[in-house]
């Protein structure tokens, strides 16, 4: 038996790692991966709560998060490719102007 709070703390740690990764990483792709990490942390809390409350809806929500994450990854990576094509860099610190 594992207390629910353990799962939540683990989820929180992963989420925080994601946030910190977003803040300290310069590579767009890595930043994007940090977002995925955050989503995974949230997913864990969903599943943990689903088990705790005996409600499968929590797991269904994870599917929706996955679908959205997949869609996001598709578009996001396409944007990254487009950005790279025009700026020839993946460093977000150098991508801070809307016009070229």
């Amino acid at each position, binding site marked *: 038996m594992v207390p629910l709070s353990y799962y939540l703390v683990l989820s929180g740690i992963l989420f925080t790692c994601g*946030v910190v990764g*977003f*803040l*300290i990483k*310069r590579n767009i792709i890595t*930043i994007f991966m940090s977002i995925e990490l955050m989503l995974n942390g949230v997913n864990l809390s969903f599943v943990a709560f689903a088990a705790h409350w005996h409600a499968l809806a929590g797991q269904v929500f994870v599917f929706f998060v996955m679908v959205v994450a997949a869609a996001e990854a598709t578009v996001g990576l396409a944007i990254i490719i487009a950005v790279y094509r025009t700026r020839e860099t993946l460093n*977000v*610190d150098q*991508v*801070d*102007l*809307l016009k070229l």
Partner: protein
Amino acid sequence: MTPNLNLWLIPVLPLAGAAINGFFGKKSSRTAVSTIALVFCGAAFAWALRVAWQISSVDLPYQEYLAHWIRSGSFVADFAFYLDQLSLVMLLVVTGVGFLIHVYSVGYMWDDPGYYRFFAYLNLFMFFMLTLVLANNYLVMFIGWEGVGLASYLLIGFWFTKDSAASAGKKAFIVNRIGDFGFLIGLFLLIQHFASLNFTQVFDSVTKLQAGPVTENLLTAIGILLMVGACGKSAQIPLYVWLPDAMEGPTPVSALIHAATMVTAGVYMVARSHVIFESAPTALAVVAIIGTLTALFAATIGITQTDIKKVLAYSTVSQLGYMFMACGMGAFSAGIFHLMTHAFFKGLLFLAAGSVIHAVGGEQDMRKMGGLRTYIPWTFMTMGIATLAIAGIPPFAGFWSKDEILWKAYQANWIYWLIGLVTAFITSFYMFRLYFMTFFGDYRGVQVDSHGHAHVTRGHDDHGHGEPHESPAVMLVPLMILAVLSVVGGLVGIGNGFEHFLAPVFGTRETVGATGEVASHSLELLLMFVSVLVAASGAILAWVLYVSKPYLPQKIAETLGGFYSAVLNKYYVDELYAALFVKPLVDGSTHILWQGVDRKVIDDSINDAADGALHVSDHVRHMQSGNLRSYAGWIAAGSAVVIAYMIWLGVGR
């Protein structure tokens, strides 16, 4: 069961004509445009005749509900039409005279580049005028009221490239707004106190009101405010100044809108509201005084004018004064009677004047006319009939109606009668002056060669004439029909026939009064005789001064000196208004509102605000660096604050 009269067709038909001509007229030929305009206008007239034909089988007043409009609480104003004897008279006058003037316009406006536009406007005017006449509540009436104002504005400014026409249009519009302001406040008072604008309901409420000073004050206020509106629309003192300027419009417009129909809307409105006025004697007295003064005042100005249309314009103002005088004495049917005959002969006068102008190539100054009777015999004859009619020579139409008014005036107060009589004399004089100056004596105009380079500057009316020539048949036929009407139109008033016809509307009070005094029939005949005498003497004076001894007017003018120039300059009323209202308004707007309020307060505060925003955002915008990670940092910090706040609130408890 009353048959369905389909009254809605009458206004809608001209609207359809206006729409077709307005949208498609530019590409259509003149024939097509005039056909459409005439067909729709004529159809409206035909339908009005049919309605008149069926009138005996209908319970009057007949109401026709069309559609919801405003339903706010207990206040209801629907699109609905109302027909009684009064509106029927107006209906026939408007559609009939309107149709004739449409026919006339086909000839008159033939060479104008804005041909389709003219007919679209004219049909639009017909629509609004008929809406006004047929309305069953004040609000629908107000639509028509404003609509005819719009049409009037458009048509006065028809030649908008000409500065004077454009400003005359604006003047008419603005002066009318002053009147409409009063009208609207009157309507608001009605809504406030009777919670309705429906004629039937309002008049029922008014008659059921307890008599008393409060009631009377209220009704007086409403009446005077309505009269302000009527003053604006019907060019009464002090708001008459726009009408003479309105003569900048094409002559058929002057005939239709500014003589026969629209300007009588005020009279119609006052007559329609007779219940209110009858309960408010003070308001009625105001109407009478304004009418009487206007009649005399405008007539005197008319003496000195030299522009043929201006004379007619002042004459119109004067005649409208007569109508208000009649209304003011409670003789509403007499006022409406004069309205009708006036529509015939004043329409005829304007059309004939238009024919004259047409004949001499756009010249409007009577001093440059003269001796035209041989050139344009038909115009000469029809205009003669109209002049006799307006002067009040029996048996022409004007005699009957004017005499009716004078008789009522005499019954009310002999001062009214006296002023009316003087006015009748002056009217006769200036009308015959006009007539003689135009048609008798020698031709004083510019003799242009047949190749046509008239050096007069009425560009649009300029046809490049040789000698003055008669107008085409399409213009003459309406003249003749109107001439016939001017002759016989008054006969309906014999034996109080017209009064009896309108009796269901205005009640039988006055009729009883008139028939009750059988003994005064001889007095009536005497007064009739006096007025005819006065009219004849005016004519004779005019003959003396302008035909047999044409040098005399100059001498008289010199003798009178200052008075003459005052009259010549229309008593300096325009200048007075300019000094009293326009200049303070312009100066105030310039110095206080524009340079003071607008520049110093509004502009400066806005500029300061913008500058402040600029300075602040100059510093703040550095937050928006474009760096993704900075944004994320703000989000993280902000979310931490939110989480801390929520925990502090006890959400996590």
